[in-house]
């Protein structure tokens, strides 16, 4: 087996991985950075982010306000010291991207423009029309080509980590183009592999979003944190689940039920006002909006379509010129996929799974509990999103913590002995042999495409917007069954070159492990908080027992074991989470007492 020796290995080349690579290359140009991605970097799912990235820039805004919005939005399950650091680093990272050429949208005088976003008190979302993630990703990728110490492994699929002497020392990767394996050894490894939304049926995610890095760390004993918190984005295309950005509402779009009524006013988000108000109505947080949809559906006030029940996203009043300037991608999606002109007709939408709030736990320095292993971006749980992420915080997270991960991995690498390939190659060969065995096994005739469909269906049923203990238990049981059947998978394709049958099976293995962590964590959280809402006697938040991070521990041949860890509270004591007029009342009272 071929091997490559690096100082820092980064797995995943989306926003977080590329930012980490650049940071590492700048921190010490003499180090070799290996950057592995299972797709060309510009195909990474960061590309599909639409609305923008948060960073305080207006004079009447403050870091405290961004902090409070984030912690409240996360229903107090956030690491507050990490959030405080995060909000302080967002704007410098946005400026850095600007210097690297990101085509941020501008005001007429040439200054950066910002837009309103859900759950954010003041406009602080930097945007590049509605292709923010696309422009950021291409900017980062293109900028990364400037650094000769970044050695890219484009289209290499990671099958395992190399762990020896209590620390991570590399990874075993497969080139689909040849079917050959390579061992990449390094003194520090960063996982930046993105989320796991594809374990659900209707989702906004690209096909590559299969939780690979989460499963890799999980299998090596790193407990996954807060995995029960999956974000349903309220405005997605029925059927495909494709995303209509929250920026639609940030720009003034409204949500209507089948009677043309702005139903959000019935769910603690009103009252309706002539002009959009931040943190009210359509600018409420995603968990509350998706939950309101669920209730509307139960009340029979949604519309039935072949892609499921829908409500309407109305952008008509924005006018064609503004739509073209601010939301061109949304217009193209509606037109091309649905034959709808948003300037003329409202767009049918429904919630779909969008974002994995939990992930690989890290400290404020992005270090995981496993020595030498760092994590950044959606695969990680650094602690800023809590039980519900605010829109535009996740793009900002990629750069803030991608940067930290690059710096910290370099620091760690410099203090760690170099990997000894002679000693580690056997482990890499064993990982490769295991992956080969899945390709070549006789199996029992199970098709992975069938298992994947059953997994997605059971996740949607048991771990949806509202959850019931018995249904979550059924999902856990079903996942255990699917894992048993996965052992009997028989591939149709046993060839070497571009065997995507094989890659999809390897991904399904990752997905099943991650799905189990989600379902088991959900089952055992006997309260309702943020995106985890129960209907079976645990309808309220229970801070006495569950102001705690869940930790799902991988258990060979059995369901993950769940434990709990403390939440870091610094300056925001858990309180009532309210939006609309009720939220304003609480904020005003706080300000009054602060001024008294």
């Amino acid at each position, binding site marked *: 087996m071929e091997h490559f020796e690096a100082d820092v290995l980064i797995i995943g080349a989306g926003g977080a991985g590329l930012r980490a690579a650049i940071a590492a290359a700048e921190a010490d140009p003499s180090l070799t950075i290996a950057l592995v991605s299972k797709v060309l970097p510009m*195909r990474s799912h960061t590309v599909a982010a639409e609305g923008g990235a948060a960073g305080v820039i207006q004079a009447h805004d403050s870091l405290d306000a961004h902090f409070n919005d984030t912690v409240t939005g996360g229903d107090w399950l956030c690491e507050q010291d990490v959030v405080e650091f995060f909000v302080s680093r967002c704007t410098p990272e946005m400026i850095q991207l600007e210097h690297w050429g990101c*085509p941020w949208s*501008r005001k007429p005088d040439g200054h950066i423009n910002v837009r309103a976003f859900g759950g954010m008190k003041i406009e602080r979302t930097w945007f590049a029309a509605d292709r923010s993630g696309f422009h950021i990703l291409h900017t980062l990728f293109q900028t990364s080509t400037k650094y000769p110490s970044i050695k890219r492994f484009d289209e290499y699929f990671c099958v395992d980590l190399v762990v020896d002497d209590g620390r991570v020392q590399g990874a075993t990767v497969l080139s689909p183009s040849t079917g050959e394996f390579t061992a990449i050894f390094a003194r520090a490894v960063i996982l930046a592999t993105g989320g796991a939304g594809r374990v659900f049926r209707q989702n906004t995610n*690209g096909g590559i979003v299969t939780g690979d890095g989460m499963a890799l760390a999980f299998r090596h004993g790193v407990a996954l944190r807060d995995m029960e918190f999956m974000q349903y984005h309220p405005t997605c295309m029925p059927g495909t689940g494709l995303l209509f950005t929250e920026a639609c509402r940030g720009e003034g779009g409204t949500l209507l039920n089948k009677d043309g009524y702005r139903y959000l006013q019935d769910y603690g988000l009103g009252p309706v006002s002539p002009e959009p108000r931040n943190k009210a109505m359509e600018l409420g947080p995603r968990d509350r909006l998706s939950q309101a949809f669920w209730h509307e559906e139960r009340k029979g006030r949604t519309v039935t379509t072949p892609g499921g029940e829908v409500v309407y996203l109305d952008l008509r009043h924005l006018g064609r010129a503004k739509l073209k300037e601010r939301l061109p991608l949304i217009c193209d999606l509606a037109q091309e996929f649905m034959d709808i002109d948003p300037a003329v007709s409202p767009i049918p939408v429904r919630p779909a799974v969008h974002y994995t709030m939990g992930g690989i736990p890290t400290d404020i320095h992005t270090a995981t509990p496993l020595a030498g292993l760092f994590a950044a971006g959606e695969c990680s749980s650094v602690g800023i999103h809590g039980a519900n992420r605010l829109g535009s915080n996740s793009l900002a997270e990629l750069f803030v913590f991608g940067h930290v991960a690059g710096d910290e991995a370099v620091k760690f690498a410099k203090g760690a002995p170099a990997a000894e390939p002679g000693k580690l190659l056997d482990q890499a060969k064993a990982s490769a042999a295991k992956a080969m065995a899945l390709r070549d096994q006789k199996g029992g005739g199970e098709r992975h495409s069938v298992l994947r469909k059953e997994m997605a269906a059971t996740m949607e049923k048991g771990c949806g917007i509202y959850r019931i203990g018995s249904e979550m238990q059924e999902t856990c049981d079903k996942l255990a069954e699917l894992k048993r059947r996965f052992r009997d998978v028989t591939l149709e394709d046993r060839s070497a*070159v571009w065997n995507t049958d094989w890659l999809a099976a390897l991904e399904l293995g990752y997905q099943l492990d991650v799905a189990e962590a989600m379902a088991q964590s959900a089952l055992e959280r006997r309260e309702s908080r943020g995106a985890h809402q129960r209907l079976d006697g645990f309808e309220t938040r229970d801070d006495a027992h569950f102001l705690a991070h869940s930790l799902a521990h991988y258990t060979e041949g059995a369901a993950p074991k769940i434990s709990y860890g403390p939440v870091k509270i610094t300056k925001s004591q858990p309180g009532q989470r309210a939006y609309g007029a009720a939220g304003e009342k609480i904020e005003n009272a706080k300000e009054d007492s602060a001024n008294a």
Partner: protein
Amino acid sequence: MPDAALAEKTIELKILRYRPASDAEPAFGSFTVPYTDDMSVLQGLQTIKDTLDGTLSFRWSCRMAVCGSCGMMINGTPRLACNTFLRNLLPGPVTIEPLNNFPIERDLVVSVGDFVKKIESIYPYIIPREPKTIEEGPYLQTPAQLAAYESFSDCINCMLCYAACPQFGENPDFIGPGAMALLQRYNGDSRDGGRLKRIDAISGDNGVWSCTAVGICSDVCPKNVDPANAVNQNKTNSAFDFFLRFLRKEDAQ
């Protein structure tokens, strides 16, 4: 994804297959696929892979025409499979082949390495006109200055323009429309001062003057990037920069 099993209508997809271990050369395979009116060509391919033939290989990811993975020849034209709909290709059969002008690795998967090298060769990053620290804040850039390069920054690297370009078909070393658009994206950015450094990429034997101005690159672009316009602007700039450099040499002497 729509449940293809519930569909009553079917359509024939004729796909160019090539598996290097077993096939001497590419040959068409035919599949009859159930479809619904909202199904894309990509969903047709996924239906084949999931239910009819797991050995069919193709790249895909975002499903929404922004990641650039699923470019292929559909009825002879380079298209993204995800935003090309079966309902618009009736009654079929639909012919699906790998992108023209690229080596086939397997089935609909072509080699992308050379394309990526071309992108890397044109210094695709800001070479600051006036360097600034983070503390000094963002550069000012008016909407008009943004508009000068914005459309060229919309390229998703899907390579459809290369599959359409007759010049690239004849000369694989030709820098090509996509990289030209990217070059113009940076040359046209008010923050950038790297134009002279990029001269060689566009003025050399395989650069901008190789283009024979067919313009089909812009016709097939799914994002209205208009690479043909980028090539034209580069021709003007290339001529201008050539003389500029000549004058500077004179100065130096």
